[in-house]
């Protein structure tokens, strides 16, 4: 079990270093595993150095930088044992426009590599990147209904008027 953990860890670590460099267009990140020998509790340090900035622990990054770094690590772990489909629930919320684009570039890369994505989002750019879009509504309180939605260059603020019922 210990060996399996270390094998997973080493693979995830390498994936993380590569994905971070890709998502942050430069910069470096690393996973540092310490301790684990009694009486020291094993500790996992996540450190990152965005391009042109200082090396810090993940907790010291800005809100959006933290989120993007954590996403890089979730994908790094995912790559160790990839699944045919991935469901993302609103993880793009703290990202600014530039970071959303980088995030979507990674999604498309995995998608071309045969991973199916189902992405729940409030973000307009993520909606534009989707091949298929479904809207969930609750016209009658407490009762959910699903409609298919088209963007067609319309500002997404008029999503509800453009809904095409299935």
């Amino acid at each position, binding site marked *: *079990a210990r060996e*399996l*953990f270390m094998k*997973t860890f080493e693979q*995830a670590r390498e994936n993380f270093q590569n994905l971070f460099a890709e998502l942050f267009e430069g910069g470096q990140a690393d996973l540092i595993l310490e301790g684990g020998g009694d009486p020291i509790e*094993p*500790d*996992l340090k*996540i450190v990152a150095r965005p391009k042109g900035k200082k090396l810090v622990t*993940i*907790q010291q990054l800005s809100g959006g930088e933290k*989120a993007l770094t*954590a*996403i890089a*690590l*979730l994908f790094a*772990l*995912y790559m160790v*044992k*990839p*699944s*045919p*489909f*991935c*469901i*993302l*629930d*609103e*993880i793009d*919320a703290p990202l600014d426009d530039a970071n959303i684009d980088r995030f979507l570039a990674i*999604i498309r890369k995995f*998608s071309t590599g045969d991973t*199916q*994505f*189902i*992405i*729940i*989002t*409030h973000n307009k750019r*993520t*909606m534009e*990147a*989707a*091949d*298929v*879009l*479904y*809207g*969930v*509504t*609750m016209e*009658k*309180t*407490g*009762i*959910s*209904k*699903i409609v298919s*939605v088209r963007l067609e260059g319309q500002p997404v603020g008029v*999503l509800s008027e453009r809904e095409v019922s299935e």
Partner: protein
Amino acid sequence: MFLSRLEIVGFKSFPERTEVRFGTGITGIVGPNGCGKTNLLDAIRWVMGEQRPTLLRGGRMEEVIFNGAPGVGPVGMAEVSLTVENNRGILPVEYSEVVITRRLFRSGESEYLLNRVPCRLKDIVELFLDTGMGSHAYAVFQQTMIDALLSEKPEDRLGLFEEAA
């Protein structure tokens, strides 16, 4: 292997029979707060065999059954069916398409079906386990996992690695 179709009736905020056809690429799910998007994610987890009510944001499994709305009474059963295309022969069955169905009744009784044939929960779980995917048949990325990685406590961060291993 990919998901082609999800059919829900009586599960959480979906009392009426509802269908979603997923694309092979990126399917986006949008809508206002509280309208039922995360409930779709819960439905997929549940039909694939999730047994922990907390991971479905409930205290008891019975809580996934639609419990009423203004003018609409609760229903007696929750049912979710997921159609999986076996396009690369990953699943250990002869079919090119597999439909897994799960039902839960208020009495606490459960039913499981594989291509409309009754089976045990074990059969559904093992269907994916044998592919080497196991609980990795699908990956879910949520804010709770991001919070775990950002946590001050090492055990929270390590927890995600131990689950992946």
